[in-house]
């Protein structure tokens, strides 16, 4: 009985040992391996399909290097570039002159009569404004990226204001002539413009180059006098007699100044200001240096494809012997 038990135990141990050897050491059967290979193929195809759907991966047979830039990244980088590279654009205007003259008529007891003639001249000594770019909007299309760039213009200025009044008739007798000057401080209130243009893309050797194309943009820079100017006008009128005040009131000095300055100074924002080629910061190296040797890297552009979601470009890279460094 005891011997039988020993034999059974030995048989069980050998069975377990044989099983473990075959299962864990001997290796899987060809069928099991084939199942695993099928699973890997299936997962690989599934991954490729997911990548083509989501990342819109594409392939260029001849291109050793493909670069894909999603429109979301391009949008973000363009916003950063507009903010970082065009944050300090100044507009400086000097020595601009505006003039407005007219006769002022009023209904008097004896009918409508000319009560005076005024000449309002403004000498803008200096206007300084800054252009503040907003967030650009990009749209990928064919070989270009359409760009809409909102720009705000805001600043300040100094001007010399002269008001000449030549009183006529009764007003002339009461008011006499006036010739007053005033140094005025002004602001350039924020006004926004939309610049429309495009980035023309081309692969230049090892790099992708975007050349902005923008038309000249006509701007109008309005000037808004400070409160001190309006106090000056009020005091100018308030210090006169009633008849004179009535005559000057008819001249509507304040409104005339406002109208003259609020039309704005016409300025052209030249497109060439923005039209400077931007080389995208990713490029193929021209040479490789290894211990004791230098290699020339030849880069041939292969593909440039823009879809609404992504920009792809491909470069065929080949390596050739360069000059050996001394």
């Amino acid at each position, binding site marked *: 009985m005891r*011997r039988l038990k020993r034999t059974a135990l030995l*048989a069980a*141990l*050998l*069975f377990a*040992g*044989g099983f*473990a050897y*075959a*299962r864990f050491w*001997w*290796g*899987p059967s*060809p069928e099991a391996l084939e199942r*695993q*290979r099928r*699973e*890997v193929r299936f997962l*690989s195809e599934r*991954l*490729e399909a*997911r*990548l083509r759907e*989501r*990342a819109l*991966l594409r*392939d260029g047979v001849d291109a*050793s*290097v*493909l670069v*894909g830039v*999603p429109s*979301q*990244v391009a949008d973000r*980088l363009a916003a*950063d570039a507009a*903010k*970082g*590279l*065009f*944050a*300090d654009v*100044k*507009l*400086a*205007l000097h020595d601009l002159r505006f003039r407005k003259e007219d006769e002022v008529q009023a209904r008097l007891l004896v009918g409508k009569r000319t009560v005076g003639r005024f000449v309002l001249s403004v000498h803008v000594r200096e206007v300084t404004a800054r252009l503040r770019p907003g967030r650009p909007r990009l749209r990928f299309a064919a070989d270009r990226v359409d760009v809409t760039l909102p720009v705000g213009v805001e600043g300040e200025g100094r001007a010399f204001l002269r008001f000449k009044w030549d009183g006529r008739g009764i007003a002339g007798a009461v008011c006499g002539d006036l010739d007053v000057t005033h140094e005025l401080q002004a602001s350039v209130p924020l006004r926004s413009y939309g610049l429309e243009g495009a980035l023309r893309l081309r692969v230049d050797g090892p790099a992708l180059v975007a050349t902005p194309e923008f038309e000249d943009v006509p701007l109008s820079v309005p000037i808004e006098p400070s409160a001190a100017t309006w106090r000056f006008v009020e005091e100018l009128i308030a210090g006169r007699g009633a008849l004179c005040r009535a005559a000057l009131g008819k001249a509507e000095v304040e409104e005339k100044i406002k109208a003259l300055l609020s039309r704005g100074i016409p*300025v052209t924002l*030249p497109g*060439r*200001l923005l039209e*400077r080629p931007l080389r995208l*910061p*990713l*490029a*193929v*190296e021209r040479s*490789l240096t*290894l211990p004791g040797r230098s290699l020339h890297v030849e880069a041939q552009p292969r593909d440039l494809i823009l879809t609404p979601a*992504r920009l792809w470009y491909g470069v065929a890279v080949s*390596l050739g012997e360069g000059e050996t460094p001394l």
Partner: protein
Amino acid sequence: MALALAVAAGLLGLVSVGCDTGGPRARAEAAALRRQAETLRDLIDAVETDHAFSARHVTLGIGQSLVRDLLQLALPIEAESAPDLHVRLETAEVAFENGESRVTLRGRVRRASAPGTFADLTVRGGLHRFAVGEPAGQVTARVALDRLEVRQAEAEGLRRELVETVIERLGQPTLESLATQIPPIAIPLRFERTLALEGLRAGAFEIAPASLRLRVALAHVVPLAGRLWVQLAVSAAPESSAERAAASRLQASR
């Protein structure tokens, strides 16, 4: 009688699993396939949850033939393995498939004392330690070697002995010594760290010189369909004048 019974039970154990199992080579392949399946499942999960290959990243697709050419430039590499073996690896193959980068180096191992006695050697490994270099902005990777196979030995009467010696003595230290001789594989692509714009005056307008500092970080690397797909997170920030001056100095020194 008892012994016969026990042996029969052992054989039964073998038969119960299947007689056509494939030995160490099949076991190694099964382990590799398990790893690949696991990697692929992780990648599918990452893509489906937008953690990889999202619209937030710039994608580089680097062909395996370019990486092979770059790796080939680092060859041949040689190592002496005590006491009498000399290893020289001369050719490289690179494959990017199923989420794995595979590097195969081929060459020969010889007896230093008898150069006519040699065995063809295949060393396998992969790329690892991917990085975007500072300050050059190049994508780099290192080669790791993890196993070797002896294909064929040439030396009458010594064949079996040489193969056994090679397998026994060329261990991990030799593989590490060979791998350290391969410099980092640098993809010849440069990510400029700054984007600069010269100052310009046009009419009443004047643009001041400005520059942007670009930050590039490696997000994911996926070897697939013959390419190494490298995902980069790129961001930009205006550069201070001090940083601009330092960048100009660096540019000038290049």
